[in-house]
């Protein structure tokens, strides 16, 4: 059949979403697909990351943070989750904890009416299933930030640890990728990392000095630091 790629994805999406009973949205962004050589390399890179994470043998919670703003942490987290989801029989959930600059929802073209903030702050705590959304990628789910109020601190919310527990209970086999703020927000990063098994630092090409990376290194517990993803490297 000569169906365009997007339609194929949509079909997958629909079937997944219908299974999960979740709302369905179509993406406008390109995700990794193996159509071009360049993207093949990217795909392989993510597979490498995936296998190194797995080999590490920590919990299924991985945090992705960046050393500077807009380094591509969202890109890395979403695509890493995609890579996990592409494994047959695997599931992945990407959680957007970057309340300062939420990007996951936009990246995947998802609605942001209901998200993590609702869980953390609403008087009446919604169910996990209510905030988890299906994505165009088969086997991958996402939790957006929800409506964010600048003044309120989310990460220090006492409900956060419970959220991760509930999430893991609901999806026990899923790999959870947390899209964290950049390491400038040292406190937030530390808190989030405490819930995760490993941390990935995203260093973008040509935008981060060595000293910044050093500082980032100090912020994160050495044991949990899985490594660095060097992003946007020119060919």
């Amino acid at each position: 059949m000569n169906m365009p790629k997007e339609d194929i994805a949509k079909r997958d999406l629909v079937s997944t979403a219908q299974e999960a009973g979740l709302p369905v949205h179509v993406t406008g962004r390109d995700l990794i697909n193996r159509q071009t050589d360049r993207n093949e390399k990217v795909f392989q890179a993510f597979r490498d990351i995936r296998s190194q994470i797995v080999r590490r043998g920590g919990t299924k919670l991985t945090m992705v943070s960046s050393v500077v703003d807009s380094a591509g942490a969202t890109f890395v987290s979403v695509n890493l989750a995609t890579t996990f989801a592409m494994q047959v029989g695997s599931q992945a959930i990407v959680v957007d904890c970057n309340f300062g600059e939420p990007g996951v929802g936009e990246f995947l073209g998802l609605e942001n009416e209901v998200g993590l903030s609702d869980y953390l702050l609403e008087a009446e705590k919604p169910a996990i299933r209510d905030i988890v959304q299906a994505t165009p990628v088969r086997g991958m789910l996402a939790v957006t930030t929800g409506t964010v109020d600048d003044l309120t601190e989310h990460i220090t919310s006492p409900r956060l640890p419970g959220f991760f527990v509930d999430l893991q209970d609901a999806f026990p086999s899923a790999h959870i990728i947390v899209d964290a703020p950049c390491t400038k927000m040292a406190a937030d990063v530390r808190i989030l990392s405490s819930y995760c098994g490993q941390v990935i630092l995203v260093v973008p090409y040509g935008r981060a000095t060595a000293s910044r990376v050093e500082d980032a290194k100090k912020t994160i517990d050495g044991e949990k630091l899985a490594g660095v993803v060097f992003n946007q490297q020119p060919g």
Partner: protein
Amino acid sequence: MNPNIEQFARTMLHELNAKKCIVLGVFAVVSVIAMIIGNSLPKQYTSSSTILVERRDIIGPLMDGAAETTDVRDLSTIVRELAFSRRSMETILREGGWLDDDPSLVEQELLMQDIQDATKIDKSGSNLIFINYKDSDPERAYLVTRLYTDWVIQESAKAKQRESERAFEFIDKQTQEYHQKLLQAEEALKQFRTENMEALPESASEVNSRATKLSRDIEQVRLELAEAEVRATSLEAQLNGEAEITGNLTREAIIRERITELQKELDTLRLSYYDTYPDIVVLRGQIDGLMEKLASDSSNESLVYSMPEGTEEESSDSAAVFSPLYQSLRSELSKNQTLQQTLKTRLREMETILQTEIERGRRIADSEAEQTELIRDYEVNDDIYQDLLKRRERARLSMNLSKEEQGFAMKLQEPPALPLAPEGIRFIHVVAAGFVVGIGLPIGLLFLLVRFDPRIRWERRISEELALPVLAAIPLMDTAAVKRRRAASTATFWIGIAAVTGIYGTVGWLKYNGMI
């Protein structure tokens, strides 16, 4: 950690591509600035002429090295003095149109200074002079150079003329001076000869021979006198009855005695004078004469003046007095006395004459020295005079030659030309430089960026310097956004290229048509 060359180059290319619009922008700005600068450059036109210098001194060859001319001043200095002289500069100011604005005297001075500053006068080798003048107006450049050249050649011809005239005057004066000296010497010689009439070269030997003859005669006379005296003595002795007197008075002895005397005298004189001295010559003549006599007399028997024996027995006085022998003796004696007198007188006269001759001889010797001196003086002056006459003619010839400008000091080797193209840095040079800088500058800046920017551009820095494991390096993805950005950037870039090309083309066309 330092990247290797390949990594560095790849990063450079990436940056170049990523920032190509900025690079182009810098290039465009630099180009435009270069064009503006190049356009506003003052155009300078240079006109130049070459002068050949043939002979630089006049006196030298005429004096044949006697007067040394040293090239104390540089040839180009001389030409510069000529070219920058007051009259020359005034002519230039006037002809060049600088006086049209009616500038004040101070301004005129400044203008002259400016013109001189824009003029270069150099020598090349020992024979060529270059005159160079720079101006913003090509016609004026040509005009001024021509004025300089004409002036220099004209003035140097005049100078040469003056010099050869001076040279001629100098030699002429010298000739006249020596002519005077020559006349004086001639006069002195004539005077001298007149005063010393007998001072003829031959008289010296004449005098000598006369003196010699005289001295011989004197000796002869002396000899005869001595003879007579002896005879007188013996006669007296005989008369007095002293017959014992037998003296072996030989003539030979007398002669020998005299020779010894003369020899002594000769030796004394020889201490003070040369053998050619008249007194000495005379003495030697005398000695020689006596020696001859000695030789001739030796063949004769020696005359012994001996008294006849028996006369000592003569006792009676008066009886003997009146004997015929006594009478004859007596008359002989008186004859002898007379003879002696005569001889003595003759001797005195002759000695006087001899003295005179000797005196004369001395005078001749003295004056001969003086005459030689005068003759030498005359001859030397004559030589110089003859020489000067020749030189004067040569100087005259040279002066006439230069009058007709057959022989010249400076000749125009290459006339000045009207400059068609400006000198030095021109519009095209500046624009070309701008082009190069426009490319080089941004690339250079990018190089500095890649080299010295502390931000991480290479994976190895993370793994080595920071000791963090790199899980993966994600290459830049061809996402739609990236593609869009790239397309926009490329489009801008090519529009920029077109714009810059358009600018270059337009400016080039305008320049070519002389519109700017």
